[in-house]
């Protein structure tokens, strides 16, 4: 009997159902709305933008589903190396790691800022970063399969919160006139940046490409992707309209975290401020995503350092996590306060670009590869 059980991050014991795809698409797309929505998403006519970008996102997901239908996807690393070749794969992993680090940073630092602002103004943010990282590492250390399964828990622990925003639709101050103008008077930069923000917020499902071995080949993947995307668009619309009713476009621009500001006004007979509970519960959602990204990050490092064929050990995984934690602390100390907008802008662009490029690139490469194969026969 071993005292320490074998450490395995990428084991697969069963194929997971398509419903995980729906849950993951939805939760990944809902990640950044809470943190970065108000920068450009303030005018009522953005309702149409949310709908239009939601439709575009649907088409993008259909392209992504073609990747899931390919033979390369379920093979995981082997599939990628067959498709792209090892040097290109290493190069892409090299490009992907900073993007992952950026995503983790925005998530952890953004969430810790919310906690700092609304719950614990006196607590040192670095402690909060440590707690978040420790729990995420614990979750990630259980392996990819169990971490993916956690999405069901994360989904059900957070999805119901949308119901709470219902009360903002029935507030006496809520008026339909808050939703005017529904048509933009001119196409300003602000409008286009709003479109970009929505597209970037809807990004995230492209990260599912690495989960194909666990999700298996499923004919219904397009359906599950679409349902996830549709739930997100409905949530975006409800939340956006609620913010319009509550703040109005002018005031919305002033609010840093409008979603959180709004729930500060909700109360129960036993709790006067339920925002503290809700902010805490959002952790299910964030910690799950950070855990998945930590495993991705470690997997990426193994590809870059060509250690893919060596057995996984705890030490290297914890060192990778430690590197991320140190980076987060440094970012928090040096950049977050002064250059927050630059980081967020960079994140918006990076998210938008990765969401549009990754599915198309992979599908195009698959087609090229198949054509080349066909030519050789």
């Amino acid at each position, binding site marked *: 009997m071993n005292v320490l059980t074998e450490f395995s991050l990428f084991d697969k014991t069963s194929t997971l159902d398509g419903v995980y795809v729906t849950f993951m698409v939805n939760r990944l797309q809902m990640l950044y709305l809470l943190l970065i929505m108000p920068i450009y998403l303030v005018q009522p006519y953005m309702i149409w933008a949310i709908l239009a970008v939601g439709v575009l996102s649907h088409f993008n997901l259909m392209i992504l589903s073609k990747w899931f239908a390919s033979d390369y996807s379920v093979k995981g690393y082997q599939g990628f190396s067959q498709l792209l070749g090892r040097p290109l794969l290493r190069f892409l992993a090299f490009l992907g790691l900073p993007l992952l680090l950026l995503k983790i940073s925005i998530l952890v630092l953004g969430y810790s800022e919310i906690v700092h602002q609304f719950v*614990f103004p006196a*607590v040192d943010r670095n402690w909060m970063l440590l707690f978040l990282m420790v729990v995420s590492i*614990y979750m990630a250390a259980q392996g990819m399969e169990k971490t993916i399964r956690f999405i069901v828990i994360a989904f059900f622990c957070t999805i119901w919160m949308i119901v709470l925003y219902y009360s903002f639709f029935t507030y006496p101050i809520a008026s339909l006139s808050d939703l005017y103008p529904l048509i933009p008077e001119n196409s300003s930069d602000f409008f286009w940046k709003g479109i970009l923000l929505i597209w970037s917020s809807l990004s995230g499902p492209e990260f599912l490409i690495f989960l194909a071995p666990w999700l298996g080949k499923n004919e219904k993947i397009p359906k599950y992707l679409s349902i996830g995307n549709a739930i997100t668009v409905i949530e975006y619309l409800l939340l956006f309209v609620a913010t319009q009713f509550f703040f109005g476009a002018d005031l919305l621009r002033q609010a840093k975290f409008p979603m959180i500001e709004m729930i500060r006004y909700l109360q129960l007979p036993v*709790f*006067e401020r*339920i925002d*503290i509970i809700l902010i*805490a519960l959002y952790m*299910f959602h964030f910690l799950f995503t950070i855990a998945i990204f930590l495993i991705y990050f470690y997997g990426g490092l193994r590809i870059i350092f060509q250690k893919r064929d060596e057995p996984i050990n705890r030490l290297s995984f914890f060192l990778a996590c430690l590197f991320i934690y140190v980076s987060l602390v440094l970012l928090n100390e040096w950049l977050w306060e002064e250059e927050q907008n630059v980081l967020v802008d960079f994140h918006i662009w990076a998210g938008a670009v990765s969401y549009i490029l990754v599915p198309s690139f992979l599908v195009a490469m698959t087609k090229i590869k198949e054509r080349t194969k066909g030519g050789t026969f």
Partner: protein
Amino acid sequence: MFFKKKAQHKEDQSPVTIERLKHLTSNIEDAIFVEHETKSSKTVTLIYIKTIIDEARLNEAIIEPLLRCEKKPINKCITNAKVSDISTVDETEYKLMTGCIILHDSANNQWYSVRMDNPEGRGIETSETETILYGSKDSLTEKIDDNILLIRRRLPLSTLKTESFNLGSQTKTKVVMLYIEGLTNPQLISIAREKILSIDFDQFLDSSQVAAFMEDHIHTVFPQFQQTDRPDVCSQSLGMGKITILVNNTPFALNAPISFFHLFQSPEDYINRWVPASFLRSLRYISFLLSITLIPLYVALTTHHYQMVPIQILFVLVESRGKLPFAPFWEGVLMLTVLEIITEASLRMPTKSSQTLGIIGGIIIGQAAVQAGFVSQVLIVLVGVSAIASFLVPNYSITKANSLLQLIFLILADVLGMIGIVFGLVILLAHLNGLTSLKQPYFAPIAPFYWKDWLDLFIRAPLQWMKVRPESLHPLQKWRYRKGR
């Protein structure tokens, strides 16, 4: 293991002799060697341990037929007991020490054994650990054959298979694994079989010790086997596609694989009408959550989040805590420790004394602590509610784990308030999500997600709706009814 395994017991496969047996039973005062002569003047030696055999039956089933025996071999003379051939020392020793009569036909140098164990023991009684108002009242006993009988009465199937094992180099405990062939997933059967066969230890005095060796995760407070003394629960589990393990000399059977949610199911859920049954089951989940978070919530609110408390309640809290010398965390730790001491003491005391202890503990100490100004009245109420809530969960293992969980949540609540409590919940759920029982996910049917199994999860849907067996168990027969009839 931290230490290197060394084989301490080697099987003796050498042929059995009277001298070897005499050597084996030296200094055993109740070991009997007696010779009888048959009608045909054959000498038969009977060897047995007097205290563990049924002496009344010995005379009637063995000695009398032997004395009347003429030309037939002695194993043919004994007709109303099963006679088995034996040959090796090890086999003979095992049979002798487990209630068999050893017969030696000296003329032919043949060795036989006849099972004749002492039937003394507790009869079939009502379950005291899993009491229900309605439903069957019989419970498992220490006698494994009786337990198999109780299950077979409920499942008269030729497909109900039993596999027997002997565990423990000292105790030689008989362990029987039951499953329904053609229904239970063969993978589960082979996992359980492999786990039992790999066990190597000296003593098995209780089924929980067998479970300890079969568990996938040893560093957790959550049981991965359902321990029950109810034959109806075992039968139901078998019928769903699970495995039941019976251990001799213990009235508790083990059912596996289980999920975390099985620990909240009571046999009465399937006897009550579905609406009250569902309500009571939901209440158990809420109670479990309350029992681990109520006092931490008090600590979080009074230490970090006064702003969350409505003004009227805040007045009560301030008044209650105004003159207390301890911080809410220490107040909570103090009360939880006292509560644990009272609970543990009342379990160890005779029944009548434990009632007195309950009164002293609950009323006198509680009241005195408030009057002395050590703890607040609000906390006393919360401790009482959380203690009662913890006993709503039918599985006692969970109740025992509660106190530990409560303490961890208390520390987290003191450090990080509400955020700490949710941190605790995330860790708890991630931990449960990582556990397995017989290699099957412990948090099913939530993660992995089997939506059809939700009919018997937080609620107990009408039986007519539960037409399929739990998907999470991967049974070979999916449907619970015969189609087309």
